[in-house]
């Protein structure tokens, strides 16, 4: 990739961290490229307005400084291309203008550009025609403006803001209204917001923090003097002018306007959750001290680069604001002096009376601080300490009184009483519920930063959406469910229904005081959400993996996700098991701490703050070895951490190249590291493998020889050799003692991303990436030829197995502990030169695959949403740990890894789609079921199960059921009530050409085709007690009664050879009958007692499936099979409920049938598909789809092989 393509691609990343991660990968090994791209990004970001206005239209330079024509960003959203269609609609309110370069006019102001857009409206760049100056125009969002009260308040607040005239407050020029749409004309600030600055620069230095904070406080003081409360002080509303970075406070009062939008509930919450004061979050009355709390949040962010109350949801942020203590600043940024921390802590006091009492006071103290920083004296130090303490009415525990010890880096602590942390107050609950409503109205959907969901969720949560209610299904009576923190809503097992207003809710399930599940649920107006919470104790060795729908005899071999870790979005995570399997280490090369989690309960054992490009446990599990890889100008360090204490051991050797992988020998004596140029020095290329003494961290040996990044390493079980995989396209075996190359393994010839040793040390595996020049479809690399895993015999160096199936880069490879299964994980790869159109190449194979080492056969596949970084077995082989972009999953490995039913079943579907009748859309129609064509659309919750696409073929208000493919697969016979009665109808395979076959005032159903496709047999109800099997030509002519017996003869099924028809007989008892196809020679096939219905021939004609009561007294309807000669009768299914309407797949390996649960009344049913021997099974339609009655058997389309055996 060249500079241009990397730059363009980098701009598409939505967050800085994602961008950084992308650059890490795209500029791997090319620091010059990285630097030049970063300069471009900086240039792009710093002056977004550059050249955007044609030269002669932009002559407003009298008040703007040279080269600083950047528009202020008034909203957190980036400036948008106003010409985009997306925006065209939103600007309806502009009067059309004939002037070129002008979007339209608002009042007398020509508008040239949309600067930004927020929840409340749009900010435009316009020109004041009278004074000929550029102005910013803020327009209240039309949806808010339709509320008269909101409009009045918007104008009133704008008027109040206009009264504030201060250097650090954006000047309001005019307030006006056009057709009831109010707008504010304001000073145009050339610069960008504090938010953008922090995102770009990270934490500020102290002087800058003090300067910005002080000016902000001064601006607030001026506003407070006018009796105006800002209510939404946040970095995005603090504009920094270009050049001297003068603060301009913007967005006064807009938050207040929102308060008035038709909220019928009690007080409402407006503002930005992460920066909101507790009293504001709780919908209580606020005064100017609320702004001071927000100012504290802003200062915290300038110190640390992050907001203090980040949470993964709005509700979470609010809860934290009310009840939580932010992470001590000293822990994040040790350069912040104690007195400044004390100032911020006091601003962040939960109770307004514990804060400073005025913005002016804060500004003054910050001024002293600024002086102190510029010229530190004991006098200023003393004054600061006394001022910080002064006026504190209520003693804050651990607060200002501890100032003297603060210098020893002890974090300040303003922790509220412990009970309050553990038991969120009722007030929080109210606040959270209010926010649910707020989100809906204002559309506040911003991510609130880093997720604080650190623990594992030891449960499986499935969310489905049939038809505002929330259906919760709880399997375990001990589970307590809360919604948005509101105490016990539901306890005990069984479904309950809760009515909720539309909005976003957090559903939390707890057991024995531990959180076992939490999920955000969106309730839409007419929607219905089902949350199913089945508690699966974890880890449980006797955990049986069973189908949720069946109780027994239906082993479903799917990977069950038993736990999940959510990290920050945009970060590529890696995960490793501890040696004893009790803990996992999760780390990312981006700027986020590594975490060690205890597996049984998901408890966080340790957080490690550092830079991690590579990490590994020592064999005793007591230490973690890490290597950095992102320090730009610094050398990269090898670090060893004590797991128990979280402390780093002294002596951290440093080297030039980034640590790309780290492994520790099994005796714990040696650490081996693989390197590559990531950043760092541009001239030195460090692609070495280094061997360190684990105890002393002294470098023992350095192996040179790789010509490109060493991506992955593995030490042999005997500790004598190490295998390396490099982007120089080689897999090599090295002698650890001598550093000599022992052997080189030949594989796919492309770049190598992963290597592994088999547990017995005899085999080496390597995972390859794509050939940059091969298999490109658009910008997606699809290269199954090269993205292979290869297995070599270590003695001979010969290739012994090749695993083909991935189409993207194999980022991770590993063996099961017993060495029989290989696990590979595939993800994105940026390789080769850019495409002609400037795009970059990526692979999109986000799968984890398991392979049979012995045969090379693929055993299973787990699809993920994003690029995978790692996948590994737990030490006991029972679990699989996989990591993708911001998620780490823990899977239970099925007891026996058979061939994946998913793919095989999909293959069957692909060859021969299944017909099903269902009322999933409210009326019974015939659906064609195909395997899903878009793997990316797979629901995450259904990983491991197949997905299908359902196509409605009939879509007619009448009941259409009982479909049957014609033998040539071109026509479908079905049963329909369109004529008023149930009759047999025909249509083409695509649903067109519908025509009626039978016309009789009785009921005709269950059509079955003669193998030559000429005739259709069906059952006709002549009266309640007299049903006959008829046969008719496919065009409806020549109906013949085949049975002609005053009893119920029903459910005909034509044998594949066309000679016989099986049918059910109900006269003096029910029997399964067989007759010749002309109706002669009727004979009993099965003498079994019970009701025999719905026979179905196997494609080879040797067996017949049928349905019967399991025993004489009733009970379950089960599927049975009998040989065509009447021998070998046996029961196939053992499921509670009613199982009927069976059909064979054309290859004879699968059967599809309808299953009704005895627990679900009415017509609800699911279609089950399983192999004949029951080894594999899947339900292709969950509760949402119901098979039709009256002949609702599913039907596979015949295949060519079935036609011509």
């Amino acid at each position, binding site marked *: 990739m060249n500079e241009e393509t990397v730059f*363009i691609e980098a701009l598409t990343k939505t967050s800085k961290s994602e961008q950084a991660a992308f650059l890490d990968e795209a500029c791997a090994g090319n620091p010059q490229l990285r630097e030049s791209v970063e300069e471009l990004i900086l240039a792009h970001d710093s002056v977004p307005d550059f050249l955007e206005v044609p030269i002669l239209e932009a002559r407003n330079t009298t008040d703007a400084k040279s080269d600083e024509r950047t528009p202020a960003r008034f909203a957190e959203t980036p400036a948008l291309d106003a010409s985009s269609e997306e925006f065209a609609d939103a600007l309806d309110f502009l009067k059309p203008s004939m002037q070129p370069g002008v979007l339209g006019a608002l009042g007398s102001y020509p508008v040239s550009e949309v600067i930004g857009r927020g929840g409340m409206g749009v900010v435009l760049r316009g020109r004041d025609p009278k004074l000929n100056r550029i102005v910013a125009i803020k327009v209240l969002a039309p949806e808010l403006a339709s509320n008269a009260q909101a409009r009045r308040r918007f104008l009133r607040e704008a008027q109040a803001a206009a009264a504030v005239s201060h250097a650090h407050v954006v000047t309001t020029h005019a307030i006006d209204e056009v057709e009831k749409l109010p707008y504010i004309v304001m000073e145009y600030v050339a610069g960008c917001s504090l938010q953008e600055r922090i995102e770009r620069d990270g934490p500020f230095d102290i002087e800058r923090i003090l300067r910005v904070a002080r000016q902000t406080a001064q601006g607030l003081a001026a506003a407070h003097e006018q009796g105006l409360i800002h209510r939404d002080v946040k970095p995005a509303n603090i504009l920094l002018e270009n050049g001297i970075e003068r603060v301009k406070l913007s967005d006064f009062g807009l938050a207040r306007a929102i308060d008035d939008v038709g909220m019928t509930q009690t007080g409402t919450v407006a503002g930005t959750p992460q920066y909101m004061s507790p009293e504001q979050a709780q919908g209580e009355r606020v005064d100017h001290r609320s702004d001071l709390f927000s100012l504290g949040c802003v200062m915290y962010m300038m110190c640390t680069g992050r907001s203090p109350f980040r949470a993964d949801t709005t509700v979470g942020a609010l809860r934290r604001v009310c009840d939580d203590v932010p992470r001590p600043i000293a822990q994040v940024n040790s350069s912040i002096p104690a007195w400044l921390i004390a100032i911020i802590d006091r601003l962040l006091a939960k109770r307004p009376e514990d804060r400073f009492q005025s913005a002016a006071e804060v500004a003054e103290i910050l001024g002293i601080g600024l002086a102190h920083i510029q010229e530190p004296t004991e006098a200023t130090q003393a004054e600061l300490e006394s001022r910080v303490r002064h006026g504190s009415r209520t003693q804050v525990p651990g607060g200002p009184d501890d100032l003297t010890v603060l210098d020893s880096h002890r974090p300040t602590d303003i922790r509220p009483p412990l009970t309050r942390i553990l038991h969120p107050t009722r007030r929080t609950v109210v606040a959270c519920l209010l926010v649910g409503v707020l989100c809906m109205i204002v559309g506040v959907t911003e991510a609130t930063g880093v997720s604080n969901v650190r623990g594992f969720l030891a449960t499986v949560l499935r969310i489905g959406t049939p038809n505002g209610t929330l259906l919760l299904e709880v399997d375990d009576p001990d589970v307590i469910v809360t919604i948005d923190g509101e105490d016990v809503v539901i306890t005990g097992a069984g479904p309950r229904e809760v009515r909720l207003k539309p909005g976003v809710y957090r559903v939390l399930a707890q057991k024995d005081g531990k959180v076992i599940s939490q999920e955000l649920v969106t309730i839409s107006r007419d929607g219905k959400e089902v949350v199913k919470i089945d508690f699966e104790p974890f880890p449980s060795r006797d955990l049986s993996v069973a189908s949720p729908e069946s109780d027994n005899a239906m082993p479903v071999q799917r990977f069950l996700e038993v736990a999940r870790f959510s990290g920050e979005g945009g970060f590529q995570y890696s995960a490793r098991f501890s040696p004893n399997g009790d803990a996992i280490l999760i780390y990312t090369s981006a700027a986020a701490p590594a975490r060690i989690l205890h597996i049984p309960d998901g408890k966080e054992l340790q957080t490690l703050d550092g830079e991690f490009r590579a990490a590994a446990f020592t064999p005793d599990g007591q230490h973690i070895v890490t290597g950095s890889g992102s320090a730009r100008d610094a050398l990269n360090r090898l670090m060893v951490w004590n797991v128990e204490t979280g402390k780093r051991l002294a002596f951290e050797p440093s080297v030039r190249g980034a640590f790309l992988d780290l492994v520790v020998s099994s005796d714990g004596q040696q650490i081996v590291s693989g390197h590559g140029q990531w950043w760092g020095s541009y001239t030195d290329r460090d692609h070495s493998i280094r061997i360190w003494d684990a105890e002393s961290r002294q470098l023992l040996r350095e192996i040179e020889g790789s010509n490109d990044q060493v991506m992955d390493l593995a030490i042999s079980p005997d500790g004598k050799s190490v295998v390396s995989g490099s982007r120089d396209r080689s897999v090599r075996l090295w002698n650890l003692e001598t550093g000599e190359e022992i052997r080189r393994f030949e594989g796919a010839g492309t770049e190598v991303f992963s290597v592994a040793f088999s547990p017995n040390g005899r085999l080496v595996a390597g995972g390859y990436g794509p050939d940059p020049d091969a298999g490109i479809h658009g910008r997606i690399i699809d290269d199954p030829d090269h993205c292979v895993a290869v297995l070599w015999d270590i003695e001979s160096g010969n290739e012994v197995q090749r695993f083909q199936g991935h189409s993207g880069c194999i980022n991770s490879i590993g063996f099961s502990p017993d060495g029989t299964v290989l696990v590979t994980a595939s993800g994105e790869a940026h390789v080769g030169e850019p495409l002609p159109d400037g795009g970059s190449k990526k692979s999109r194979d986000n799968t984890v695959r398991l392979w049979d080492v012995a045969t090379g056969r693929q055993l299973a596949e787990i699809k993920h949403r994003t690029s995978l970084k790692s996948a590994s077995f737990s030490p006991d082989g029972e679990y699989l740990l996989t990591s993708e972009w911001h998620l780490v999953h823990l899977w239970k490995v099925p007891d026996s890894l058979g061939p994946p039913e998913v793919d095989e079943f999909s293959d069957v579907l692909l060859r021969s789609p299944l017909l099903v009748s269902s009322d999933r859309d409210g009326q019974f129609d015939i659906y064609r079921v195909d395997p899903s064509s878009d793997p990316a659309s797979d629901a995450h919750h259904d990983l491991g199960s197949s997905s299908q696409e359902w196509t409605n073929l009939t879509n007619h208000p009448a009941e259409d059921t009982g479909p049957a493919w014609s033998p040539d697969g071109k026509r479908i016979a079905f049963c329909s009530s369109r004529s008023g009665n149930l009759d047999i109808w025909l249509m083409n395979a695509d649903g067109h050409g519908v025509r009626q076959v039978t016309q009789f005032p009785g009921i005709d159903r269950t059509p079955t085709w003669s193998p030559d496709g000429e005739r259709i047999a069906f059952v006709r109800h002549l009266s309640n007690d007299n049903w006959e099997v008829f046969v008719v030509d496919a065009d409806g002519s020549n109906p013949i009664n085949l049975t002609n017996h005053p009893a119920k003869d029903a459910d005909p099924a034509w044998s594949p050879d066309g000679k016989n028809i099986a049918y059910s007989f109900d006269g003096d008892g029910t029997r399964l009958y067989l007759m010749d196809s002309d109706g002669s020679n009727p004979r009993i096939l099965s003498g079994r007692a019970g009701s025999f219905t719905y026979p179905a021939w196997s494609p080879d004609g040797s067996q017949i499936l049928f349905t019967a009561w399991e025993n004489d007294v009733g009970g379950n309807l089960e599927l049975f099979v009998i040989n065509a000669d009447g021998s070998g009768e046996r029961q196939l299914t053992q499921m509670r409920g009613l199982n009927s309407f069976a059909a064979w797949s054309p290859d004879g390996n699968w059967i599809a049938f309808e299953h009704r649960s005895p627990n679900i009344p009415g017509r609800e049913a699911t279609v089950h598909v399983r192999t004949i021997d029951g080894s594999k099974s899947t339900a292709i339609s969950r509760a949402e789809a119901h098979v039709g009655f009256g002949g609702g058997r599913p039907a596979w389309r015949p295949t060519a092989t079935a036609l011509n055996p």
Partner: protein
Amino acid sequence: MSDVTQILQQIESGNLTGAERLLPLVYDELRRLAAQRLTNEKPGQTLQATALVHEAYVRLVDVEAPQNWDSRQHFFSAAAEAMRRILVENARRKRTLRAGGDYQRQEFIEDEIALPSPPDELLALDEALEHLNAKDSRKAKLVELRYFGGLTIAEAADCLGVSVATAERDWTYAKAWLRRQIADDESTSDGI
């Protein structure tokens, strides 16, 4: 039939030397129009590059004669370049003036053309644009069309015979590249 129309038709029929003859004509017309506008219109009126170019087009090209978009492209392309030259010359004069050069009354009256940016900035851009031209002339032309000619992305894309998406990518890259180049030049000259 006007000269320009003739030239455009020549270009259409494959006579590429026509393009060389087009520029001076367009240049002159634009200068004349701009000066006329500036003296006749009320103070504070914004000069619209687009409007100027379009007006020049209407004046110079015989609109009765059949034109295809190809020839209009050539015209706008020339117009953008002309506009750039006019402004850059203006900036140079201003700088000379500031540096104590002789004041010469020009057809253009400097004080009446409020350059959108200080002369130095415009000249720096001009220089950076030359660098870009050497590296990637398509992108340089795009900038000329957009910034000096006032064309929209879509029009410029048409002019250059590329897709809008490509033009947008080029535009984003070119802007950042120029910005960086200007910054580099500044720091270099600061250092000397």
